[in-house]
Structure formats: structure tokens, C-alpha cells
């Protein structure tokens, strides 16, 4: 699955999806993972930290490059997928499921409206590719 229909997206290829009651999971899209190539290192935030939207919450490093990962919306980190940095293969296998990176408590749900939905992200990828 290249794009998850239920998720919303940032231009920098992070996805966000509601889990339940204002709790959202965030990860990297399949396109982002493909572009990065083999991931060798990942730095994820500590639980309890708060970020504003579009602030970098972590770093991903592949054999090709290193990049910041950005918060799709403002919120507090309530869970971190601690297995992800050591199992990069898991990310590419199930990018929108087991491949989640952080779970956040949203600070302002209205911020979601500014993000691309699956259709818009699909169009965006066409112009990118």
C-alpha cells in the first residue's frame, strides 16, 4: 500500500492517523521510506515532550541522507515505538500500521484541516515523482 486512505499527510511525507479519542499515531509514508533507502539510525523523542506543528520531533538517517521528521500537528508525545530504530525493516513492511513512530495527544484538532488527505497526497506525489 503506497498511501493509506485513512491518514493525512505533510509535504515532508509524515502521515498522521487517529487511533482513538484525540490520540494519533504518526509515521513515515511508504514513499518517504523508499526515497530514504536503507535506514541505519533513528532518533525519536521522549514520552511527555511537547512539540508545535511542523517542529522536528526526530531524526532519520539512511545510507543516503539524514533528515528531520516533522510534527503534522501540535501535541504531546504519549508513546514511542522503541523497536522501530532497531528494526527498520518493520517500517517498510507495515508503514501505516506496526511502522508507527510516535503516538501523540493532539493539542488542536483544527490543525488537521491544513494537512493533505490521501487523494491530495497522491496528487502531490505525482508532481514530486
Amino acid at each position, binding site marked *: 500500500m503506497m498511501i493509506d486512505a485513512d491518514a493525512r499527510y505533510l509535504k515532508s511525507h509524515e502521515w498522521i492517523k487517529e487511533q482513538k479519542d484525540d490520540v494519533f499515531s504518526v509515521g513515515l509514508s511508504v514513499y518517504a521510506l523508499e*526515497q530514504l533507502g*536503507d535506514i*541505519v*539510525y533513528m532518533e525519536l523523542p521522549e514520552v511527555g515532550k511537547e512539540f508545535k506543528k511542523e517542529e522536528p520531533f526526530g531524526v532519520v538517517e539512511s*545510507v*543516503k*541522507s*539524514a*533528515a528531520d521528521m516533522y510534527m503534522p500537528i501540535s501535541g504531546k508525545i504519549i508513546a514511542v515505538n522503541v523497536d522501530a530504530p532497531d528494526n*527498520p525493516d518493520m517500517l517498510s513492511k507495515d508503514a501505516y500500521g506496526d511502522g508507527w513512530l510516535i503516538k501523540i495527544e493532539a493539542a488542536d484538532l483544527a490543525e488537521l484541516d491544513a494537512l493533505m488527505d490521501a487523494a491530495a497526497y497522491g496528487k502531490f506525489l505525482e508532481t514530486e515523482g
Partner: protein
Amino acid sequence: MELVFEKSVKGRRGLRIAKSDVPTCVNLDQSLLRGKDAELPELSELDVVRHFTELSRRNFGVDTNFYPLGSCTMKYNPKVCERIATYPGFAHLHPLLPQLRSGGMLTQGALEVLYEMDVILCEICGMDAFTMQPMAGAHGELTGIMMMAAYHQDRGNTKTKILVPDSAHGTNPASAAIAGYTVRSVPSDENGLMSFEALKEMLDDEVAGIMLTCPNTLGLFNPHVREICDLIHSVDGLAYYDGANLNAITGKVRPGDLGFDIVHVNLHKTFATPHGGGGPGSGPVGVVERLARYLPISTVVKREDGTFALDYHKPKSIGYIAPFYGNFGIVLRAYVYILMLGHEGLERVAENAVLNANYIKEKLKPYYDIEHGQLCKHECVFSATRQAQNGVHAIDIAKGLLDRGFHPPTMYFPTIVKEALMIEPTECESKETIDLFIDAMIELARTAEKAPETIKASPTTTAVGRLDETKASRQLNIASL
């Protein structure tokens, strides 16, 4: 190839040391003595010479092959610069000498070199004062940004942000972050240049300054550069010129005349001192008059009687950023290089570097995609997206070049270009060499269509084959060495 330890043969000797005929005068405690002999390789002198000669033949460098590593300016290092740096009057100097009583008189030549380099780099960059201390480009960046911070602190400014274009070298945001600033990335426009509109939107009173590489990492010169500097100055910000790509404009354009306040120069790029494994580097930083008081201590001054001395009286200085005077031997090599070329020579350097890059760009255009195909400066960035459709990625092209005797271009950078191959030929190469490189690139493009699997198998002619970079990064194990 066997390690020197593996070649060891029990009892073999390279030289015989005469038996000591004087009594041992220190009786070391038994616990400090070895239980058994050290495991050193046992070889004849000839074994050792052959071993290290063989190793040296595996070296890959500008002295052996073409090295078009984009944004790194891998020039030939003229041997005369090396020779002068080995003159005993320079090579045997002790760095403490000028600080000792009357030691200054014994080091006038070296101090004059530092003083004159200051004057020369000011002339080349349009700055008012330079420090030679930073030992690399990124060290220069940090020095520059620390002076920027000192300037704002002095003026009571509370600035928090540094702007950096998204095509910048990774060291720019890193230097700004280490100096305590928040980094804001300015996107590029459709022409591959920093978006002037985006810059205007992002500009506010919190902006301490901007770091700009010009020409940028796509090899493109930003025609708005003067307006950009004016805009930054309008909020009392400072404009930092990253000199990584100065080779494209030496003798033609001076960053100071464009409005920049701080400049770093990579002597190991633009001024042909050894680079990479052959280092060390040197990243002098120049500033305009109003920032000169913040320069690191010490600086070299010329006294009225024509002698040179170190000046430590700089109460506003950001302090020491390196021991002594930087990599003096490297500054000296660059000094020789600049005097050898003169103004006209440096202009020709820029002209030929740009000509070579454009020649490669035009010749390879039919074979590789190029997003920003306009006239470039010292380097051009192709994309291997066309080849990637056949499974041949930028890294495969790079490995294929190894088999054809060339150092690969910079890959996957700048990150705004997909499957990027960033080629910087420098002015040093002949048309014949460049043509051979072009032929190899064309042949690789054709092979990528017809027989992609052969490129995927490269390199096959090198000492080691394709390395597993992912495994090396994920399972880092250097202890076994």
C-alpha cells in the same frame, strides 16, 4: 591483501640493534614489566618496503585519478606549495616561539605569512579582517556564527533564528544549532534558487542572520543575492557567506561587495591545499569592520617599524577557538598558491572551473536528466531517475565509475534533487581527461538500458567489492579490527 602482522615470519629481522653495553639504571617494579614479548611483526626491510609500497598503490587520489566529487573542489595540490612548506625555517618552528621573550624576532617570516594572508584574503573576499585559526570549513562556520551571536549580544538584540536554504551543506544548520540558534530552512524555487518570496515571508525581528552558499549546491548563482543581504540587514541580521563554492567566483566577485558581513574560505578547496584523507583542512573567517573586534585571539599586527607581532588585546573577542594560529602549514601552502597565481591566475581558475562544469553538463545532458539545466558555475547536478527506472540508481552509477578509473561524484546531495549525481571537475583537468570521464558516463547510461545487472555488480576491479553500507552502519563493530 595480507596484514603486515600476517606476513610476519618468526625470527626474521629488519635491522639488528647492538646489545646494550651500559647498565640499566632504573629498576622497574616487576608488576610493570611484560610477561611476554610484544607481538610485533617480524619482517625484513624489503618485506616492509614492499608492503607499504603496495598499500600506497591502492591509494586513490587526485595524484592518480580524476576526482569530480561535487562541492568538494578536489584540486591538484601543486608540489611547489608542499616543498616550501617543508623549508626548515617554517617546518621546524615551535608554535610557542612567538610568545616567548624575543621569540617574535625569530618568527618574523611566519608572522608575515599570517599577516599577508589576512590582507590577501580580505582583498579576495572584500572583507576587512580575517582570522586564520579555524581548522576546517565547519569550524569556520561555527566561528562566524559565534561572532554573529557576539554582535547581537553587544547590541542587546534577542535573536533566536538563523535562516538556511534547503540546498545548503548540512554543516550550515549544524553550526547554527551548535551556536544555540534555531534553524529555519528556506525552500528553493522552481529555478533551483532560494525562494526570495519565501524568504520575505520568513523574515522577522527574531532572525539573527542567514547562511548562504553562493553559487549554491546546484552550481547556480543567485541573482538576488544583494537584495537578500539588504533584506537581512533591514532587521539588523547578518549575512554569512559560506565559501565552500568560492572557486567559481575567485577574482570575479567579492562576497563583501555583495553585502555579506562574514565569510569563511576553505583553503583546502579553493586554494589547493591537501584535502580529505590528505588534510588537515583550514577555514579562515573574514568579517567586515564592525565585526572585527569579535575575531578570535590572537591576530597578527604590523608595527610601525615594519615588524610583526601577535595582538592579544581584544576584549570583545569570542576567545580562543583553536590552539595557536590554526593550521599554519596549510595557510602557508595556500599563501604560496595565491602568490603563484596572482589576480589574473585566480580569475582564470574560476573561468576554467566554470567552463569545465558547463562542458560536462552540455555533453551529458542527452543521457542524464537535469532539472536545472541553465548555465551553471563550478558544478552541475544530474539525476539518475531515468536510469533508476531500470533499477540502476545513483549509487550504481557511482560504483560503475570506480571500475572505469574515476572517483564517483557526490551522490544523493543536494537532497532537493532525486538520485543526485553532483559533478565538480575543477579547473585542473585537461579536456582529454574530462572527455574520458564523459565517455565513461555515456557508456554507463547505455549499459543501464541494455545490461543494468552488470552495473549492479560493480565494482569488480577494486581492492574490495561492493560494501554493505547498511550492515556497516547497523552493526558497527570496529573492535574486531
